[in-house]
């Protein structure tokens, strides 16, 4: 692979069915356009009071005009920042457009963060206004209000519990609308005039990225950034006004902003908000969106639920289910990718669609999905292929806040589970010497808010953005991501060691809950593995293997054997990939306890803290690299559910795994068979 090679996709021509975004260069202008052209079509829905309450584009426009006038009356001005905190609610989406109409900049904040966590973005972005969902968020803000001297006004959507608050700076959404009516009566053309002042180059939104180190950074995206990226994506997938999507991911996440706001305004499709976060799956089932995005975690959970629910089915039904699912695994992906498939297989697939795939998609609410995205992290190939094989056009997307999402997309018909696709329209990709992925395109952010030095670090002079991810472009022109660039290490024989890549491959097996790979500056790669209690426990139950505890189950040779097979499968896969063939796992052990955030082994977002684990379980690591060791003991502090601390004493077996000669003839040392 050549260093610093760039790969770019050709720009797509303008689509006739989408508005001219050079003319309608801000979202408020698009709102006007949509209200005019799609007036009665639904723009927004929300499951509320038992039904899907709906608002048409013209209703939304009227509402946003009132809202904007009201907020202007309350003092919101061009250039102000407006914090948005809450679950996906129509009124919060309208707040974005309202702010943009007045030339103010929305700053969406993660709604489930605690007060201390939201303090930084609010303080840093100097918000004067905050629009929040409910009492919970109001209370959060009130608790840090004295640290936010610039915050002047708080508007809340749901007045439950807030009614008796007497703070003069608290306003209900309804009250703001009334203010707006009064202002509009006096100045009917006010909002239109404000909208006309907006330009494509203005800052449209400042989402804060949760940096892995240091404080979050405010990513300033212009209208042009967001709209061009969203436009290109929409056109690439052929989205139209008749699509539907469910907005259930945090509004502060750039993905939601692009899918549920940017593309919705550009295409004029309807965005639906779930009733609340507990009912998402039910709401998904009712709504049946055509455009769907979810992080891999959700697809994993969904698949696990499917399999567990099927366990309870009658034997005949299970047989039918597995028969057709197996058939789908065989030919489903090819059929979806439009490759030639034997007639009989197609026929059988059609039957499967009638009996299993169709109903299954129906109960999951995915029947109508035309375009499904998964992004955020790598998805297990089995999981990915499962959804594709039953006919759901699920695709991987690689993106970042700094790109207004789209860096690469898997094009229809060219979907491989282990790549993240080809560069999105208008985007150029470059791989640096050390393997880091860089990109450039219309969505590239203006700068980090109030952090020129950070901007400088992230952006090359020629406009490329460093992603911090290591990857390579494969022979099909698809980008493959291996790991965070800084986490990639070297084995002593010089081979690349990408722990996350290996761990992910392991975690794709349902029986493996968590894995920690070691190998940086070592002779070979070794791993700690956590089994998945539910999956393995289920297996044990079915095989009449009784066990007392997680620790007990983890020490069984039967379980080791299963995991060994998985590890060897991973090794086989690794051996086929030139860059990572050297980091096949030679030895592994099953940890006697689950890695736990309470014990400091995981971050709160469930990421492995490799260094901490390496220290804590040093005796185990030593044993992994001691060829003579067949088992190792550890005594470790653990925290129980109720917060009590205790000490865990355990002995783990150490297993060797078969490694393989790479297809590319990589220099992996052949392991001695056990």
């Amino acid at each position, binding site marked *: 692979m050549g260093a610093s090679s760039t790969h770019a996709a050709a720009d797509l021509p303008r689509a006739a069915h989408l508005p001219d975004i050079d003319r309608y260069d801000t979202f408020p202008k698009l709102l006007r356009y949509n209200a005019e052209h799609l007036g009665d079509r639904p723009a927004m829905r929300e499951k509320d009071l038992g039904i899907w309450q709906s608002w048409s584009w013209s209703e939304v426009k009227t509402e946003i005009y009132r809202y904007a006038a009201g907020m202007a009356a309350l003092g919101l001005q061009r250039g102000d920042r407006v914090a948005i905190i809450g679950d996906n609610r129509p009124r919060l989406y309208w707040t974005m457009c309202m702010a943009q109409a007045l030339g103010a900049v929305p700053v969406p904040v993660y709604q489930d963060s605690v007060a201390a966590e939201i303090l930084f973005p609010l303080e840093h972005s100097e918000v004067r206004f905050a629009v929040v969902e409910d009492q919970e968020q109001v209370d959060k803000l009130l608790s840090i209000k004295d640290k936010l001297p610039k915050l002047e006004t708080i508007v809340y959507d749901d007045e439950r519990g807030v009614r008796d608050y007497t703070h003069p700076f608290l306003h209900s959404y309804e009250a703001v609308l009334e203010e707006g009516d009064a202002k509009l009566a006096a100045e009917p053309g006010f909002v239109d005039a404000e909208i006309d002042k907006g330009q494509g180059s203005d800052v449209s939104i400042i989402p804060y990225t949760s940096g892995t180190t240091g404080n979050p950074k405010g990513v300033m995206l212009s209208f042009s950034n967001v709209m061009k990226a969203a436009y290109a994506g929409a056109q690439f997938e052929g989205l139209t006004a008749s699509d539907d999507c469910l907005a259930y991911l945090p509004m502060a996440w750039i993905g939601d902003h692009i899918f549920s706001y940017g593309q919705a305004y550009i295409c004029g499709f309807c965005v639906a908000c779930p009733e609340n976060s507990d009912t998402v799956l039910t709401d998904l089932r*009712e709504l*049946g969106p055509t455009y769907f995005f979810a992080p891999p975690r959700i697809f994993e959970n969904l698949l696990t639920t499917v399999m567990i*629910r099927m366990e*309870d089915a009658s034997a005949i039904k299970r047989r039918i289910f597995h028969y057709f699912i197996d058939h789908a695994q065989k030919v489903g992906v090819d059929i979806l990718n439009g490759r030639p498939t034997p007639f009989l297989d197609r026929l059988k697939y059609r039957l499967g669609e009638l009996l299993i795939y169709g109903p299954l998609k*129906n*109960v999951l609410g995915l029947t109508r999905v035309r375009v499904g995205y998964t992004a955020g992290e790598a998805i297990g190939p089995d999981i990915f292929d499962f959804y594709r094989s039953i006919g759901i056009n699920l695709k991987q997307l690689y993106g970042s806040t700094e790109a207004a999402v789209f860096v690469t997309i898997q094009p229809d018909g060219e979907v491989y589970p282990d790549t993240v696709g080809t560069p999105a329209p208008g985007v150029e990709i470059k791989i640096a010497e050390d393997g880091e992925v860089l990109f450039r395109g219309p969505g590239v952010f203006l700068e980090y808010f109030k952090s020129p030095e950070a901007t400088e670090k992230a952006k090359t002079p020629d406009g490329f953005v460093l992603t911090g991810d290591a990857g390579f472009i494969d022979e099909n022109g698809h980008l493959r991501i291996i790991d965070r660039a800084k986490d990639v290490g070297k084995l002593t024989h010089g081979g690349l060691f990408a722990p996350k890549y290996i761990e992910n491959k392991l975690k794709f097996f349902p029986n493996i809950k968590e894995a920690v790979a070691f190998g940086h500056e070592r002779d070979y790669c070794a791993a700690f593995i956590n089994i998945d209690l539910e999956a393995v426990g289920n297996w044990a139950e079915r095989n009449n293997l009784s066990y007392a505890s997680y620790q007990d189950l983890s020490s069984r040779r039967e379980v080791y054997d299963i995991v060994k097979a998985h590890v060897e499968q991973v090794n086989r896969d690794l051996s086929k990939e030139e860059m990572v063939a050297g980091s096949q796992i030679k030895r592994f052990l099953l940890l006697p306890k689950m890695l736990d955030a309470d014990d400091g082994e995981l971050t709160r977002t469930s990421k492995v803290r490799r260094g901490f684990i390496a220290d804590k379980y040093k005796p185990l690591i030593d044993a992994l690299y001691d060829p003579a060791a067949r088992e190792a003991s550890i005594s470790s502090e653990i925290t129980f559910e109720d917060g009590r601390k205790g000490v865990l004493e355990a002995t783990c077996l150490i297993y060797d795994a078969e490694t393989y000669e790479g297809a590319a003839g990589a220099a992996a040392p052949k392991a001695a068979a056990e």
Partner: protein
Amino acid sequence: MFYREAGQFKTSYAADQQLLPIPMDRVFVIAVVLIAIFVVPVVGSQYWLESILLPVLILSIAALGLNILTGYCGQLSLGTGGFMAAGAYMSYKIATNMPEFMPVWVPILGGGLFAASIGVIFGLPSLRIKGFYLAVATLAAQFFLLWLFQKVPWFVNYSISGVPSAPPETILGFYVTGASASPEAKYLFVLAFVIVLALLARNMVRSRIGRSWMAIRDMDIAAELIGIKPLQTKLTAFAISSFYCGVAGALWSFCYINTVEPTAFDIERSFQVLFMIIVGGLGSVLGSFFGAAFIFLLPILLNNVPGWFGLQLATDVVSHLEFMVFGAAIIFFLIVEPHGLARLWQIAKEKLRLWPFPH
């Protein structure tokens, strides 16, 4: 399995509260009704129309009536036969005394209304009593009413035999009642009543009145304390229930047996209809139909099945077996599925909706 509900969401209460909110169900029910109207009369044999569909449909109406009273309102009645008789006799009286131009449904509905008023009278004790006490009270209706219609010759226009023939009446020149009417005409005539009455029943049970009935059934004290008037609610149930039974009784006499006679409405009939709703499903409109079909068809099946295996059973043996099977079926349903066939149907439907998941 056949349901594709994703995307069929509701944006208004009107849509969410329609009779059949799931489009798939709507299609199915409309198809069944259309087939019943247009296909069945054409392809059905005389035997099927006259000896099976006709009585099953008529008994369905009676079961529907009893289900309103017992299944929805929780008031057990053993007087169904009496109320049916009331409908039959009064219909006869009206039909034979009304002017020529009056349409045939007038006496039928008149019979129903008469039964309804009788029902109200015998429902009066329900204010004070419930459960088996009420069952005894309704037995009084059963025995008293049958005696009354036998002993008061006014009802049968002082006919000598006391068992007059059903008057032949026409719609658009077709005979729809009496012995001379064609099975097809009778079938369609009865079917019209069935469709309308079933629709009305479904509407009632999903409205305030239906909820009041169920509230009284489930927890009468709580119902009273939220402002439901117990007597008024129960009497409405008695009236409507008896109306349905009365119409059924009239149709039974006019279209099925073609005579007006007390033996058609004896206590056995009351039990038969009660069994229909137990087996079909208490508190279910659909169940009334299932139950009527099951209870009516079972004896026919019992008569024929041994023959298919080359067994020849004496008629009295079959009738004893019939009793035993009924008794066992009732106990079976009460224990295994107290909500009857309707519940089984519902479970099957849920299974299909959740397919391939088991639950």
